[in-house]
């Protein structure tokens, strides 16, 4: 069973590396949107420093959502998703392999490029470290929750707008805890409680989301 899981992970990674633009486009989106804020606000160092975590987090939220669009779409269109549904291993397990692959090719680069953006927004070293930690704990949750929305809308022709209506409200706890942790760090307090909550939400998402995603995919395949 673990072998099959690895096979699917490998397959998805391979497909992604053959179509590199799909990895790069969400990253470019991420960088461009963030650089819009200083242009709109003006080069106000104090203000930018204060709102930088919020800017980066909201943009990460949107970039994750946009990048998710292709998570199941191509497999759905060429019928391989139907074949995966017929496999002996449960669909909920297959889905975790696909999401892991997807996070490795979209979530991880996003985190890696963040220190650069933090410098652009005058963030201090402490808050940058905390930002990376929250992103590390938060983006997998975003991928898992977003995958539920994607699974529900994959059969629709215009799923994009509806997807944002479905999953943005569900993203809010992650956003709140992440930005709270960053505020605490900026004011010199401990952010352990918020990080623990984010980890708890991640564990909850890993436990429950795959079943919801599999059920939703089965409805969409119908």
């Amino acid at each position: 069973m673990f072998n099959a899981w690895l096979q699917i992970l490998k397959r998805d990674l391979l497909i992604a590396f053959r179509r590199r633009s799909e990895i790069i486009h969400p990253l470019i989106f991420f960088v461009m949107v963030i650089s819009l804020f200083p242009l709109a606000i003006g080069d106000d160092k104090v203000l930018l420093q204060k709102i930088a975590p919020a800017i980066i987090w909201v943009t990460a939220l949107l970039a994750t959502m946009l990048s998710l669009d292709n998570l199941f779409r191509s497999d759905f269109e060429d019928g391989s998703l139907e074949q995966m549904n017929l496999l002996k291993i449960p669909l909920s397990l297959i889905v975790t392999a696909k999401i892991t692959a997807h996070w490795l090719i979209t979530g991880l680069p996003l985190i890696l490029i963040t220190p650069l953006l933090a410098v652009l927004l005058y963030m201090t070293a402490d808050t940058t470290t905390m930002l990376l930690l929250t992103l590390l704990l938060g983006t997998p949750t975003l991928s898992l929750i977003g995958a539920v929305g994607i699974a529900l809308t994959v059969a629709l022709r215009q799923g994009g707008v509806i997807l944002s209506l479905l999953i943005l409200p569900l993203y809010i706890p992650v956003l709140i805890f992440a930005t709270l942790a960053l505020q605490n760090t900026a004011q010199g307090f401990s952010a352990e409680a918020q990080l623990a909550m984010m980890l708890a939400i991640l564990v909850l998402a890993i436990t429950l989301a795959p079943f919801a995603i599999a059920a939703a995919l089965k409805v969409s395949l119908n």
Partner: protein
Amino acid sequence: MNIKRLYHQFASPPYFYRISGLWLPYIMGLFVLLFAAGLYGGLVTAPTDYEQGEAYRIIFVHVPAAWMSLFIYMVMAISGAIGLIWRMKLAEIVSISSAPIGASFTFLALATGSIWGKPMWNTWWVWDARLTSELLLLFLYLGVMALYNAIEDKRTAARAVAILALVGVVNIPVIHYSVEWWNTLHQGPTVTKFDKPSIHLSMLIPLLIMAVAFKLYYIGSLFMRVRTEIIVREQKSKWVKDLAEES
């Protein structure tokens, strides 16, 4: 009569259509009576609040509406789950027909809260925990309705919506507590402390009457929506054609 038979009878759309048609006038009649009694009790006989003056009287609409907003979401999710598990058509219809009513109550709770906030907090809106979670509940309702409208096949749509509603149910406590932690200005609950409620009996009784009236209104309007949806879905079946010929 055993319970299983009763369950199957209620699950049958023609039976439900007939029975709900018989009940509907009584439900709506009782609603009008209780609504009038609750309004009279709340607006006329209940005493003026020593802190908030007359402005507090909006509580008799605001609090029942807020209760209904959560209650209907639970009904929507549970009936959705029943529809998903046992493929019961009627439960699917109940689930999806609840969404617009729940969204309306949520909107009502937000609007009355905003009107109440102006004299009390001197602002129409604050990013307070309870207001924010109510707003997010409205977004969840809108998402459910958007998804249902987007999927062509209505039976598939009902199942997709049920999954979304269930995911939402898991998320509601998480959202609620995260927002609570984030910011709190709203006054604490006054009614749920049943051992020693911090609300006087002369205000509590009209409030509870209004809450029951709102529940009845929900049942009544739900029945109307479900009956319409049944007719639309079963328009090709014989009993609907017979019904059309009768009238």
